[in-house]
């Protein structure tokens, strides 16, 4: 069982955050508890970066996040929340508070879904789920909140 620590660490992380199989020899119940604990922690961190999105989903936040995050390793809390908000928008299930937050973020930064978002240098406006935000010289204003 010894040797190749790098490969074994990679197997363990894949099992914990990317839906990989349990590596041989590990007790299933404690590793499952750790997997859940990591997911809760990740949900809490994404909620800190996307407070309106999480607040908009309220009691559904843990389940919605968990469902989305299953088998999807983190790309950082900012991008995780952004990807989730866009997915909910595309499904038509983005709550109004989340739409306001997403519109503001889209107006402020350019995000291609693959690399870190970059601040927009030119004035911009963005819509999400009925919300409209404008950005001028780096200042973002929500000109129309999403319909409640």
């Amino acid at each position, binding site marked *: *069982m*010894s*040797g190749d*620590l*790098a*490969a*074994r*660490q*990679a*197997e*363990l*992380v*894949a099992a*914990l*955050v*990317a839906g990989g199989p349990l590596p*041989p*020899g*590990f*007790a299933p*119940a*404690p*590793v499952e*508890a*750790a997997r*859940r*604990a*990591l997911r809760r*922690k*990740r949900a*809490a*961190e994404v909620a800190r970066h996307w407070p309106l999105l999480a607040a908009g989903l309220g009691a559904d936040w843990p389940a919605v996040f968990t469902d989305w995050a299953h088998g999807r*390793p*983190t790309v950082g809390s900012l991008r995780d929340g952004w990807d989730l908000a866009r997915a909910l928008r595309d499904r038509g299930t983005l709550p109004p508070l989340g739409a306001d937050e997403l519109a503001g973020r889209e107006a402020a930064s350019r995000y291609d879904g693959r690399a870190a978002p970059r601040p927009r240098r030119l004035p911009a406006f963005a819509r999400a789920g009925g919300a409209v935000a404008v950005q001028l010289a780096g200042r973002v204003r929500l000109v129309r909140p999403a319909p409640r």
Partner: protein
Amino acid sequence: MSGPAGVGIGWRPEIAGFVAGLPGLRFVEVVAEGVHPVGPLPDGLAELRERGVTVVPHGVRLSLGGAEPVDPGRVAHLAAVATALAAPLVSEHIAFVRAGGLEAGHLLPLPRSREAVAAVVANVRRAQAQLPVPLALEPIAALFDWPDDELDEADFLTEILDATGALLLLDVANVHANARNRGGDAAALLDRLPLERVAYVHVAGGAEAGGFYHDTHTDPVPAEVLDLVRHLCDRRRPPALLLERDGHYPPAAELRGELDALAAASGHPVVT
């Protein structure tokens, strides 16, 4: 600047006002990855530094226990934060947080094997060569064990500390959590650790859920953890103890109560 002394608290932006209002406070810790070493420090933190409060940068993303060499860029950031804060030391964990290109999102335990000792020792030495101040290492709380442990916890930690000369950041709540979840006697483990190397101690709250004790940092400090603090201080009182709280911040009176309980259990002066 002087080393950590007395009862401290983990500085977080959410409780910066509360922390600034603690009259007897002499030391805090700040999550190193959250500080930009260039440019102005966060408001509350700059104030504390002006008051002469010691600020210890606490890294959480170095992955010193990773099989790959530690990222020199991450160590450089920790070093720059230490310099910006004129910190007397920095701390990090005996853990890994990423592997195979994936981020785990939190601290993961190492196998207690010779191979893992060698990996972490090599990374600690690389980090030490780049850091301007001493490094304290913190053993983590884990819910599971690797199947191939060759050493027990005390021997594993002592070998790493001996080989690197690093200081020990002892987390009493982690000791409690590990004993509760993975077996073993928490007090007996404390008795076997090199307590003369303790730079400071972490204390945090947690909660039982799903048959495990979770070191949440968002719940009150349980009585068992305070008992362990008393046991530790009977053996050898550490120079400093720090309360870690990372969310679900309680009303100020409750947080003051936790700091007072820590002062009472350790015999250090009250800071509230």
